């Protein structure tokens, strides 16, 4: 159980880092107006809703899509900075990344059957992610936006591997 809790925390951390990184990425490379904030929040939430209902999507596909979408948006705004049209494509990227956040709850609820535990640990991770991103970005700026989500994804995959290898009964 402890590994699951840890995993849920890390997944919350990942979602938080990706969502906030999107926000900072677009704020610095597209525009600081409220439209950027709106796009990130609303697209992420729509992504969660899509993820909740897209039952045929596998966890692996959802997670890969999430990461790939983020780095494609990173590439897009780096190649064409301060262009408003990139925000349109970025909103799709945010939405796709958000799908995993919705899919995760359904996938693990069917295993755990405890919504409170699921939400509690994911939310704790999200909280840590806020602090981690603010501190990480302040210290490393753009490098954090490049590597932060990747490190969190590696942390997640490592936890998953450990869970599968050493605690298969959980």
């Amino acid at each position, binding site marked *: 159980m402890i590994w699951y809790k840890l995993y849920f925390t890390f997944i919350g951390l990942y979602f938080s880092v990706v969502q906030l990184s999107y926000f900072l990425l677009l704020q610095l490379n597209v*525009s*600081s107006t*409220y439209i950027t904030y709106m796009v990130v929040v609303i697209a992420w939430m729509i992504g969660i809703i899509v993820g*909740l209902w897209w039952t045929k999507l596998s966890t692996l596909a959802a997670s890969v899509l999430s990461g790939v979408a983020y780095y494609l948006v990173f590439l897009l705004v780096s190649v064409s900075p301060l262009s408003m049209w990139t925000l349109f494509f970025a909103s799709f990227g945010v939405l796709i990344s958000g799908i995993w956040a919705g899919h995760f709850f359904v996938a693990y*609820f069917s295993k755990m059957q405890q*919504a*409170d535990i699921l939400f509690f640990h994911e939310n704790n991770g*999200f909280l840590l992610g806020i602090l981690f991103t603010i501190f990480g970005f302040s*210290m490393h700026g753009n490098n954090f936006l490049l590597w932060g989500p990747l490190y969190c994804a590696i942390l997640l995959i490592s936890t998953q591997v450990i869970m599968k290898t050493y605690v298969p009964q959980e």
Partner: protein
Amino acid sequence: MNERINFFWFSNYLALVSKTHCILVLVGISLSILQFILIRDFVAILYGEEITIAIVSAAFFVGISIGYLISRKLSQLNFERLFIGSLFLHLTFPFSYRYLAAWISQLPYSGILLIFWLLLFACLFTAVFAIFLPRLVHGKIESKQQNKSKEVQEFRLKLFYTLELVGFILGFFIIISSWNKSLDYLLPIYWFLLLILLLLVTRNYKISAVFFIIACVAISFLTQTDKLSTAALYKYKHKYKLKVEVLHSVNSAYQKIEVIKVGKFAKFLYLNGLRNLDSRKLEYLNYYIAKLPAIILEPKKVLIIGNGTLSSVERIQLFSDKIVSVELDQGVLDAGILHYVDIKKLRNIKKWTLFVEDGKYYLANTKEKYDLIIMDVPAPLTIQVAYLHSVEFYKLVKKRLTANGVLSVQIAGKIRANNAMPAQIVKTLSQVFPKILVITSQRAGRSFAYSSKKMPFTINEIKNTVSHFESEQLKIILPNKIKNFVSKARIISKDNMNIILRYGWYRLKSRYFK
């Protein structure tokens, strides 16, 4: 008979389902509005550096975590008690937490107590909304209709979480409608939504009626309580000895904007609780940042980035042919128009154009070149503003300057050798511009940097121009001496914004944990 029973069961089920749906949508809307009100107000109370924003946001999520943690452990009776109690406490918005914060700030160890205060309020107000989702998924609230089968619970999770998120998005649009308005617009809407929620959850008409009556009374005094509690906060937490009056208090799309009158004459502009402008020093600030370079350069085209109060426009109109102002925040512009400038005079300046736009976006997308660019933005205490002091931003500015063009920047304090903020800003400027001249004015209470590809102006030009305004107290640092002041200072760039953390932490520590 069977059909009648089935129909009865179905209509009951439908009624139950629609009620649950409404509850979850309302919970989503409430969480959205609550998050906005609490984070904005708490950040303004604790002063809005990035580090404070992070701490306040974290406290909000702690409240949500606590809600999830206790969601299934509470009995229905205790849940309803907690819910009713919390909702009634919401009627004490915004004065309860403001007065408490003002009182705490007078006590010894106020730093620790304020952190406790922050967590307490975040838990009291936020946790209760987080309780709903897990309880409803597991059928705890509607105990008669409990269905513990795996499929039903999974379906509930999908549907209920979707509804809460839809509510959150709807709440977002209500918030948008409240931008640049005071709390007496948003709070009545919020209380009305809480009333419906109270009615749906408890089905207790008496309690709901009491809530309605108290809400009506609170609404009728809301404008006064909002202003009085803000005034108390400024008097005791900001430690003003003279009479404090709140002239303006709104939430814009970006920050809380307040104009505070202290004593008979001083008008301060506060952004997220941080003092941005002192009306007594406005004349000096505008002189050095705008009028002085405009007098010497006589620029054809001037671009002003920031300066939301628009107070520098009038000062330079005689010396230039075209003036463009770019300000991100409509709320700051409104505050400026109401309290700092004469809008009739401004409207008569035909050579002046205003864009409500992000400065960096404007610079990247305009084809115009300017003889003078004035950067009147706050100190780099948040990521958004720090970028406006970064190497990358100054490079953008340089591209939009004519060959003899000058960038004028107020550097958030008086420059001293390698001091935290001013020296870092000047060091960053030195990475982009070959020539920088810094003036420190005692009257303005800060230094100003003038950067250019060539020497911006001669020392004699400055002395001759300034002699009528302020001569004895002026300190001028010439480009060849700048190195002595910034040799150990760090550069602000997209890859290094640790000024936000270092300075934010320093301010937080000195303010609350002496």
